[in-house]
């Protein structure tokens, strides 16, 4: 492996944009491209059981057979043969702070992110100084029987529990990118919450030190046993810098009888990333699944968190916002699949497009025969900040059940002149007024976030509005 790898091809404007690229020096790296040998090598390097190796190989077969999706964003520029599918975790930090793009550093400064956290976010360091917090948290969790590990360790330490649930919510054949993830996955979080246990502190990926939690093909599996509760937070408001330009995660969640799970994402990848993620939860009797999903970064995002409402009384919620600036396309939304009677779901989507950015809401509500007396409501609001930007709405509503109520509403508008006038007549500048209006527009989202995230998100929106980011 003497040759210096070139930066990956997708997001080709990356070099012009940042004016430099990060030299990579890896101790071990899999070869570029994708074939059974590489998949076997990944599995071997991780010391996985045979069933997982077979699962990966089978997934690779499926990936090869599946055509690229022809809807949504333009993905034709992705060259699967020109990507490194596995980089050994400890080698990922071989970058230095100085080498980071200046605008990323500037954003950290302006967001007031602490130095140690910045380095972690930037991938410079995998050590984050929450070690102390993490240890006391780990102690508390294990006393309750909660398992919170990275997915690779979970496969080693809890093989039976792992095998029982892994790949049951999102099978490899679900779509081309879930097949790709199934073949080459690495890292992610594994959470098991036992019966009746409530985890009061939100679990955050970056509490978990020394692990690849923001990998390229991470795989997260959360199991909420009967009557339990957990809130998991993925990502953060500060831009996550990565030189990998394809991010394709799979998140599987099982919410058993009477349990509740909330999964909060704040995605702020740097704008060279293609973010193609499959997220799905199965909610059983009287269970509640809530996706709180914020998409700010990336060049292209295609992500539709979904809930399968499997048993009576199950409830699903998606609350999502998307912000698309210059050159960005956020194709996001949600899916609610009603299988059982007396199930309810809501999707609330807010999107903001600016400086030629494009946001699309794409959603699917399906009520299967037998999902009687179910209710679903979808509301989409889009804000267009200038006449270069674009907003689309593609809601698919299929009703095959009896006595169900389904509603969909959407509006597209600009910042209203009346609101602007009101604020400006009180001496607020136009830019400030617009920022206030945008922050007000996404308030239903921010108020669902833990305080520190909400504050950071508001600050970030302010930066985006000033056009000083990306």
């Amino acid at each position, binding site marked *: 492996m003497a040759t210096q790898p070139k930066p990956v091809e997708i997001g080709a404007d990356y070099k012009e944009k940042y004016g430099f690229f990060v030299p990579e020096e890896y101790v071990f790296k899999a070869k570029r491209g994708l074939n059974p040998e590489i998949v076997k090598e990944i599995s071997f390097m991780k010391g996985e059981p045979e069933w997982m190796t077979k699962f990966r190989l089978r997934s690779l077969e499926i990936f090869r057979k599946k055509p690229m999706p022809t*809807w949504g964003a333009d993905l034709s520029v992705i060259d699967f043969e020109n990507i490194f599918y596995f980089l050994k975790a400890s080698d990922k930090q071989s970058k230095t702070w100085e080498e980071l793009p200046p605008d990323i550093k500037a954003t950290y400064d302006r967001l007031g992110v602490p130095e140690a956290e910045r380095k972690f976010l930037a991938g410079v360091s995998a050590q984050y100084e929450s070690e102390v917090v993490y240890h006391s948290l780990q102690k508390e969790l294990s006393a309750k029987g909660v398992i919170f590990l990275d997915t690779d360790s979970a496969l080693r330490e809890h093989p039976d529990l792992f095998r029982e649930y892994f790949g049951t919510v999102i099978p490899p054949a679900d779509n081309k990118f879930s097949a790709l993830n199934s073949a080459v996955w690495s890292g992610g979080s594994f959470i098991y919450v036992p019966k009746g246990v409530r985890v009061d502190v939100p679990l955050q990926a970056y509490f978990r030190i020394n692990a690849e939690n923001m990998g390229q093909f991470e795989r997260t599996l959360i199991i909420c046993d009967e009557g339990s509760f957990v809130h998991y937070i993925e990502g953060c408001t500060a831009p996550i810098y990565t030189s990998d330009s394809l991010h394709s995660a799979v998140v599987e969640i099982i919410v058993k009888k009477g349990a509740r799970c909330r999964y909060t994402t704040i995605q702020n990848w740097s704008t060279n990333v293609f973010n193609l993620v499959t997220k799905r939860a199965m909610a059983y009797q009287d269970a509640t699944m809530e996706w709180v999903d914020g998409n700010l970064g990336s060049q292209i995002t295609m992500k539709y968190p979904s809930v399968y409402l499997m048993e009576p009384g199950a409830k699903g919620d998606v609350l999502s916002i998307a912000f698309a600036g210059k050159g960005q396309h956020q194709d996001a939304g949600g899916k609610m699949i009603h299988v059982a009677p007396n199930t309810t779901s809501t999707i609330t989507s807010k999107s903001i497009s600016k400086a030629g950015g494009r946001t699309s809401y794409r959603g699917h509500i399906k009520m299967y025969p037998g999902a*009687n007396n179910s209710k679903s409501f979808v509301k989409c609001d*889009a804000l*267009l*900040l*200038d*006449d270069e*930007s*674009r*907003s*689309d*709405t*593609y*809601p*698919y*509503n*299929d*009703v*095959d*059940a*009896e*006595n*169900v*109520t*389904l*509603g*969909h*509403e*959407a*509006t*597209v*508008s*600009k910042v209203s002149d009346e609101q602007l006038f009101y604020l400006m007549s009180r001496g607020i500048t136009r830019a400030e007024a617009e920022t206030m209006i945008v922050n007000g527009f996404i308030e239903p989202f921010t108020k669902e976030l833990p305080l520190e995230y909400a504050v950071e998100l508001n600050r970030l929106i302010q930066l985006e509005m000033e056009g000083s980011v990306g």
Partner: protein
Amino acid sequence: MSFSQETLERTELQGEPDWLRERRRAALADFERLPMPSRHDEEWRRTDIAGLNPASFARFERANGAAPAPAPKLPAGVIYEPLATAAANHAKLVEPVLFTLLHHDRDRFAALHSAFFTGGNFLYVPDGVTVDEPILGRHFSHEAGTSVLPHTLIVAGKNSRFNYLDEYIADGDEGEAYRSGSAEIFAGEGSEVGYVAIQKWGRGAWHFGDQRARVEKDATLKLFSVTLGGKFSKNRIEASLVGPGATAELKAIYFASGEQFFDFHTLQDHQVGNTTSDLLFKGALQDTARTVYAGLIKIEKHAARSDAYQANRNLVLSDKAKATSIPMLEIDNNDVRCTHGATVGPVDPNHLFYLESRGIPESTAKRMLIQGFFGQVLDRIPFEEARTLVETELESRIG
């Protein structure tokens, strides 16, 4: 007989000018070239045409292309003739516009319609002319196993005003058959055009209809579409707003029962700014009927100050009926007002309870609620004759 070159050159279609023959030939080439749409095409994903082979209906009815129903006394300059006659008599008016809105390369069915259309009318209302009486175009089918493919072409001159009705009527034929009923409407500057289409073919018909309009500066189109007949009906209703001040009102009702399948595809195409479109599709489903509504509002980049509204409401009256609703938006300009909504649901139990608590039997109460559901939109039918016709028709079906 088959849908082939040979059929096209048959004597029945002769007497047509060469330019029209050429157009038919081009459409036939598309028909032969294009594959049947498959479930992989987004527009056809929920539309099952597996049981359809157009070739098995390659036979025309003799009654096709007969003179239109007696027209009211029309003001001077108004032309109202069978399309085939008009193509020969008024080539200067017909040739530049015929099949410029309905593109035969769009799919196999549009190609078939364009290649073999028989019957249908041409209506031309000159600049500044108002026609008080509505003009009623009626298209009949009599036999199963045949194709009936009427085409309507409407050209509204500047500041003209009139109402037109296309009624597609089955005269006793209930067996399997192939039908289409398409219209191209050119609403000239400042014109006011009311257009109503009522489709009540036989229960065995496969129906493909395209209604496309081009609405110029300050013109107003009020289109109302009613779908009741056929075992399968696919209807595309599309309006392009091409001049400032253009307004399109697109309203429709459908009532699907038995094993009927209705598919609607709409487009509100705002090509320039200061344009308005208002769409409302209301449908009721009972038995094992299925309906699909997919509509798009498209606001082009420079179409500032556009105002668009789109709503689809479905009343599901039985547990086996299925409704799909896909209201879509593509907005490329920020200075617009766009709202859309969709609902699918049963008769409101509270409403039913209210009526029943006043001693009204359930079946009557339901009927009243269905009438109420349609009532709001029936008021929007642009002229009285059509309103009465639709109300009567609906009445007999709800009952």
